């Protein structure tokens, strides 16, 4: 709601700029008036920290910027800053994210709404800079909010939505925004940047309230509980993750109200799926070649579509089940690996298949391990995946079939 006494309604969008995914996130960190930032270098996420340090040096953001001695410290710093009621930002990539994992887990179990950028990168060994989703996936089971964005614009907006959801009284969970290394962290797009006033109308002040560390609020946080209480506390975390779905929907409704209708579905985006029989589903920037393949196949009359997943935690069970249940066959693109898992597929496939399990008429699900270590997933790769997925619809025994795409034989 606009303030009635305000002399003139402020324009929602202030300017337009050519920004990379990382730079767009830095702009959002400025708009969110973040208080404490902890930095440590690792490609490809680092550019966000480069950009933030410049914003601070130029006086555009007033924040403590701590250069940490490691990712473990980086994440402990923001965790404890968050506990004294400061809004915080950090991030990492690949092996750096893993180095700080202990600190990430306790941030989740302590229910502190730190926001992170994960510039997805292959895990060591061997060294590779390119994208792979296993890094961000490390936190999927411990009480994190986790989403993937596909454009710099979406990245900027999801920092704001992210704080809105993460800091909500009923949620208070850390939030990781994942973006494909290089393909998004370092690719430039035109980005609409909202005004500070508009962001203030959307994003409330961070307030931990009775859980903040302050001499006026003398509490003990995370005392030793053992078997006496840990189960009840796990249950509270479970409850928060579960109910976060409702808060996410609210947060997008409010976002649409303030910024103009930008999102119809918070959790995933459908492309040409209305009458589709076969679809591909994936996380991140593979949506671009995926959608182009759809357009080309549609041009020759094929009933295909693409679903781009945004939220992975909490998993949009109901919505995705309702959406995917109507197709004949589904090809899951996994830019990750889960060696030795059921059917030896990827992480996303396992989750999609178990989502579909209660349905009487389950679509056939096949899996494509693709684009590991930053290998390009081309339009023709996507066309080939569509063909195989179509074939799976009519060929018995193909459910759970896994194929590695673009692998040197």
């Amino acid at each position, binding site marked *: 709601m606009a303030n009635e006494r305000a002399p003139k309604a402020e324009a929602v969008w202030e300017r337009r700029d050519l920004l990379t995914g990382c730079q767009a996130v830095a702009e959002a960190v400025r708009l969110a008036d973040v208080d404490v930032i902890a930095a440590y270098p690792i490609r490809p996420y680092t550019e966000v920290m480069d950009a933030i340090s410049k914003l601070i040096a130029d006086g555009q953001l007033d924040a403590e910027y701590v250069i940490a001695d490691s990712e473990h410290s980086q994440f*402990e710093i923001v965790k404890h800053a968050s506990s004294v009621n400061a809004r915080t930002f950090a991030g990492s990539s690949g092996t750096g994210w893993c180095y700080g994992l202990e600190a990430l887990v306790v941030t989740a179990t302590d229910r502190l709404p730190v926001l992170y950028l994960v510039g997805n990168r292959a895990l060591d060994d061997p060294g590779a800079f390119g994208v792979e989703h296993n890094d961000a996936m490390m936190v999927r089971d411990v009480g994190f909010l986790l989403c993937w964005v596909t454009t710099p614009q979406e990245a900027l907006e999801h920092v704001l939505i992210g704080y809105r959801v993460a800091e909500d009284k009923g949620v208070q969970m850390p939030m990781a925004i994942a973006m494909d290394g290089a393909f998004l962290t370092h690719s430039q797009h035109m980005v609409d940047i909202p005004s500070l006033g508009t962001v203030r109308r959307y994003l409330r002040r961070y307030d931990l309230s009775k859980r903040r560390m302050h001499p006026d609020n003398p509490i003990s946080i995370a005392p030793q509980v053992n078997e006496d209480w840990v189960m009840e506390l796990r249950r509270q975390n479970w409850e928060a993750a579960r109910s976060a779905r409702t808060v996410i929907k609210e947060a997008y409704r409010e976002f649409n109200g303030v910024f103009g209708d930008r999102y119809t579905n918070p959790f995933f985006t459908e492309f040409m799926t209305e009458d589709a029989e076969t679809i591909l589903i994936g996380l991140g920037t593979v949506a671009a070649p995926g959608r182009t393949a759809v357009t080309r196949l549609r041009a020759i009359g094929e009933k295909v579509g693409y679903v781009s997943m945004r939220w992975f935690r909490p998993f949009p069970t109901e919505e995705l089940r309702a959406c995917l249940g109507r197709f004949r066959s589904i090809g899951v693109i996994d830019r990750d690996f889960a060696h030795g898992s059921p059917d030896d597929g990827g992480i996303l496939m396992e989750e999609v298949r178990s989502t579909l399990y209660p349905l009487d008429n389950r679509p056939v699900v096949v899996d494509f391990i693709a684009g590991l270590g930053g290998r390009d997933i081309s339009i023709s790769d996507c066309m080939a995946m569509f063909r195989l997925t179509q074939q799976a619809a009519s060929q018995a025994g193909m459910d759970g079939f896994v194929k590695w795409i673009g692998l040197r034989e």
Partner: protein
Amino acid sequence: MANRQSIEYAKIKGVHDVPLEEFYTSGHRTCQGCESAATMRGFIKVAGPRTLVTGSTGCMYVANTSYMTTPWIVPWMHTQLGASGSSAIGMAAGLRALMRKGKIPDEEINTIAHCGDLGGGDMGLSAISGALQTDYDLLIIMNDNESAANTDIQATGLTTFGANTTFTPPGKRIHITQRRWKKNLAGMLAVGHPTCKYVATACATYPTLDYLRKVRRALAVGGPKFLHVYAPCPKGWDYHPRYSHDIGRMGVLSGLFPLFEILEGHVTYTHDARRQREPVEKFLMAQGRFAHLTKDDVRYIQKMVDEMWEEWDVPGVVPTKGSLKT
């Protein structure tokens, strides 16, 4: 920062000046005679209620801070084993940002992080080093009970040479398996961080009031500070709990644990072991953990201690040799 509310402390001239109020009270389950617990009680007594505390994993978490029976009257938060340094930075950075931006009242609030010798002296060294490079007002206090006590007394980088621990038991073939010389931690931190204004060592109960005065001194100095506190542990060092104070005193008087203070680069010895040293044997033989040592072992330890006080360039602090003689 013009109207900043600051904490005023009266000088501790004698025991009567020690505040009566306790901010670390009943509820903990530490062993009788636990000097690490005395370390906790002491620092918060003199720091007072406008203080935030984090504690890394260890006895002072697991045996100390249990749900619904926390002994802490001030805000206290667990931090990970290697995170005392980073937790202190986080709290201090958060407070500074919030105060500067007018989000909370501008006042002096102490941020203190405590850790054990394994958590701080080994695993968390990098984070402590990071903290000592900042300009935040923070204090890190390491209670050195010379073992990973909480996990049942394993040797750490700070354990005295020769000690029997669960990782370093004397055996039939090898009678000493703890062969690492105690890390020169406070010296290393002082020498390695030229802008850190205060690094000191102390023993929780000896000399009387010394530890409490050092905490106060540290809190009065701006920026990051480090305090290494010798904390005898009846369980791990294997002696009767009634002797904790005596064991600490003997450790100090033998010169095995150097007691000093480095304030803006100036070294002051609390106990000047260059002048006077009791034989280490007395200290060693009072504890079960050294019962297996031979005369030769004791001589070796004595030789190393003598060397520390007679040959080091800055005795007890900097182990380089000879540069001052040329």
